[in-house]
């Protein structure tokens, strides 16, 4: 086993650079998916907190469906569904044949929708954790609804959201491995390719596990630092 370690190196026949590049792709994919999820999540939380019944029902449905259905199924929905829609659109404009959606875009979309469902719950909880008095105080200062949300509520909401967002991020990072099934060459897919062409699956999947573990650990430290920073100046 140890005599095969050069396969993971950076010399000739080494897969080190390819694996690190793929790890970077995993990071980019997860980050973009997480950010898109923040958009969907905010919309979902706003819907859940709305006074009107329709947005409440839509947001509850969104959150329930994408948290209750396997992520792999959602990925297939966007992979095949996106391509089918794009093909129909392209045919409308005179193109013929099948048009595939870029794998990265599909992956970001799928991760965004799934993580948005989880993030909606985090933002909703964080909004409700902001003290009532803060809303009253901003009203007393005659701040508009928009001003009060932007200047008073959001900065405090983020403080309560960070731990939950850290959990969602860990979920996103591990989910990103599933995007390998639609052919995006991220860390999981790259290790499959390496395992296949060297016939050393054990070595390559261990390498992938180690890289995922490192990314998860380092990003977790970042979230912890952000959490500590967000509470600076507040007596607890």
């Amino acid at each position: 086993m140890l005599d095969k370690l050069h396969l993971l190196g950076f010399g000739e026949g080494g897969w080190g650079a390819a694996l690190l590049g793929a790890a970077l792709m995993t990071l980019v994919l997860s980050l973009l998916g997480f950010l898109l999820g923040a958009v969907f999540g905010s919309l979902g939380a706003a819907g859940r907190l709305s006074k009107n019944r329709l947005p409440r029902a839509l947001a509850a449905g969104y959150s329930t469906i994408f948290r209750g259905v396997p992520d792999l199924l959602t990925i297939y929905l966007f992979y095949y569904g996106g391509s089918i829609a794009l093909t129909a659109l392209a045919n409308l404009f005179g193109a013929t044949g099948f048009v595939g959606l870029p794998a990265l875009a599909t992956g970001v979309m799928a991760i965004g929708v799934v993580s948005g469902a989880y993030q909606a719950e985090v933002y909703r909880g964080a909004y409700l954790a902001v003290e009532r008095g803060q809303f009253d105080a901003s009203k007393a200062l005659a701040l508009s609804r928009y001003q009060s949300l932007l200047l008073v509520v959001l900065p405090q909401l983020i403080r309560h959201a960070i731990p939950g967002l850290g959990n969602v991020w860990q979920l996103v990072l591990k989910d990103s491995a599933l995007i390998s099934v639609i052919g995006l060459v991220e860390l999981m897919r790259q290790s499959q390719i390496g395992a296949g062409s060297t016939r050393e699956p054990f070595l390559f999947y261990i390498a992938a596990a180690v890289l995922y573990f490192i990314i998860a650990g380092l990003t977790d430290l970042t979230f912890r630092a952000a959490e500590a920073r967000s509470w600076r100046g507040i007596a607890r």
Partner: protein
Amino acid sequence: MIDFRFFLEIIPQLLAGLPLTLELAGTSILLGLVLALALALAQQGGNPLAVWPIRLFVAIFRGTPLLVQIFLIYYGLGQFRPFLKEIGLWWLFREPYWCAILALTLNTGAYGSEILRGAIRNVPRGLPEAASALGMSRLLTLRFIVLPLALRAAIPAYGNEVILMVKGTSLASIITLMEVTGIAQGLISQSYRAIEVFVAAGAIYLVLNFTIVRALHALEIRLTPYRSR
């Protein structure tokens, strides 16, 4: 636009995968619970020789994707075929079914042990102290005081873990096991009707998960009669 005949056609096909989904989820959740309980209890004494290896195991299985774990067990260990044959374990690592169950069990065991460890820690300290004042041994205290309270308190968090496991069984389709998601993928790539298949397969999972949530909630209420209104 909505073609009900298509739904009537695919739903029985998807349901044919449900027994496998249930089998994978049920087996790994039960075995995982046993593992989780063992890991949580082994850490109670605070013996560093028990605590550190378990912490490492838990960190590894929580810090890496389930798919990597499945591939490592199915493809990775398959590389050591002569050795596995020698120790008589090849039958296990040869079958994608057992590899999926093993990966799911280890994964949920790691997550579950943290849930149970937290629940045991949250049992009010005075209770085991009172038990020992009554002359109960550590084992008796565990059996009659700590575990009943801890296991009850762990139900909501463990319920989330159970749902994650049900969803996790879908990954078994990547190593050729045709459970609900695997069948769904086959149907989509044949019919190119992604939305309809997603709706039908998704509904199966939602009903399944909803049933589990209700059942666990009922169990929780039944086990905490003193708190029910």
